[in-house]
């Protein structure tokens, strides 16, 4: 399998060249174009329980698409997320990564998409009671609206709640006010997420809710 990301950081999309017998899995409606000889099958996103949780509490789709190359030569499928923005590739070797709802784009079959109880803190932050944990061996592609920044946390770090895309599972999340009561609500920051521990996080430089917040007062 050969995958190249083009159009980054504004309009990242992934060209995946599947060798004979290979499969790539992608979120619902992620296919931009593909070879007509590739097989395409909709399957539940994990087992039924986790698929339902992901659908109704995590904001992901119930089904994912499997693109399967049953021919004798390499075939291409081009995958994309629903919003403009960047996509990155992560190679997992037994380790795992927590993804925010909507960040998952595609993965190889060795990757498991699971859900884990995230707690009420996450729910109050508008991010669902469960969090999506991606684990296994293989390649994962995820992305978000805007550019993506990587940051190594050692100790504590604060991220605006709508800008966190992914984080390593050993990090603990705590929801808090950005400052005092006054600065939290009048300074425009509201709630922030405090990450505690040691691990890697990915932040998006724009947020859809930020864009909507800018457009809304202009609608009549």
């Amino acid at each position, binding site marked *: 399998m050969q995958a190249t990301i083009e*159009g980054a950081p504004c309009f990242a999309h992934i060209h995946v060249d599947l060798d004979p017998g290979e499969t790539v899995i992608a979120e619902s409606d992620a*296919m*931009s*174009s593909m*070879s007509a000889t590739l097989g*395409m099958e909709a399957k539940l996103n994990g087992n039924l329980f986790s698929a339902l949780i992901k659908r109704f509490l995590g904001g992901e789709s119930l089904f994912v*698409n499997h693109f399967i190359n049953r021919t004798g030569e390499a075939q291409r499928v081009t995958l994309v997320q629903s*919003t403009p923005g960047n996509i990155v590739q992560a190679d997992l070797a037994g380790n795992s990564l927590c993804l925010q709802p909507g960040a998952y784009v595609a993965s190889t079959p060795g990757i498991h998409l699971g859900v884990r109880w995230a707690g009420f803190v996450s729910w109050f932050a508008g991010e669902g009671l469960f969090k999506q944990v991606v684990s296994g061996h293989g390649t994962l592609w995820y992305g978000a609206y805007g550019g993506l920044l990587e940051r190594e946390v050692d100790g504590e770090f604060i991220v605006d709640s709508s800008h966190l895309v992914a984080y390593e599972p050993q990090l603990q999340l705590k929801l808090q006010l950005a400052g005092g009561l006054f600065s939290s609500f009048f300074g425009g920051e509201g709630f922030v997420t405090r990450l505690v521990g040691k691990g890697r996080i990915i932040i998006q430089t724009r947020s*859809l*809710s930020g864009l909507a917040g800018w457009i809304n007062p202009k609608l009549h």
Partner: protein
Amino acid sequence: MDIEIQHGPGNAAAKIHLHPRETVIAEGGAMIAMSSDLHVETTTHNRGGGGILKGLKRLLAGESFFINHFTSGDHGGNIIFAADLPGDMMEYRLDGDTLIVQAGSFVCSSSEVTMDMSWQGFGKAFLSGERAFWLKIGGHGQVVLSSFGAIYPVEVNGEYIVDTGHIVAFNETLNFSVTKAGGSWMTALLGGEGLVCKFQGQGTVWCQSHNESTFGRALGPLLKPRS
């Protein structure tokens, strides 16, 4: 004319350098800057007539009713065109061949090219969510097209599938039909892909990486309802 596409794929603009007494035609509203001595004329058609009817057909194809003709004087001139949405642009040089262009993707062209509507049929239009009329651009000359997202070409030799809403343009040597995604209706519906366009033949289809309708559906629920 010489065409320079800048700032792609995020926010592409086409900078056109016109030779003396040369004309570029463009979609109404596409011009963002130009030399002050260019002569501007607005009509409902390219050359060769057509009048109001052609203007109405342009409207049906999702283009604006009017097209603008920009003509340089004795010293040539510059003009810059842009699109409404963020995205990419591409230049294509026609050499007697014909390009079928998605509604709304046309930015500008040299005045020598011929432009007409290509009827794709109500059935296809209804099923694919695309329009019934597409632009058919032929003759000899250059044309600039825009997209939502980056543009990538796919060389088709046999069959290739492009999701509805991702087509920018294709060679007339290709045919497309609207079909279900995957092997079964189950997959098409559950997998969220629904209907797709299947291209057949030999030629190039230029795809846009992103789909403005999909983005609209992601952003829409966050917007306040119309009062």
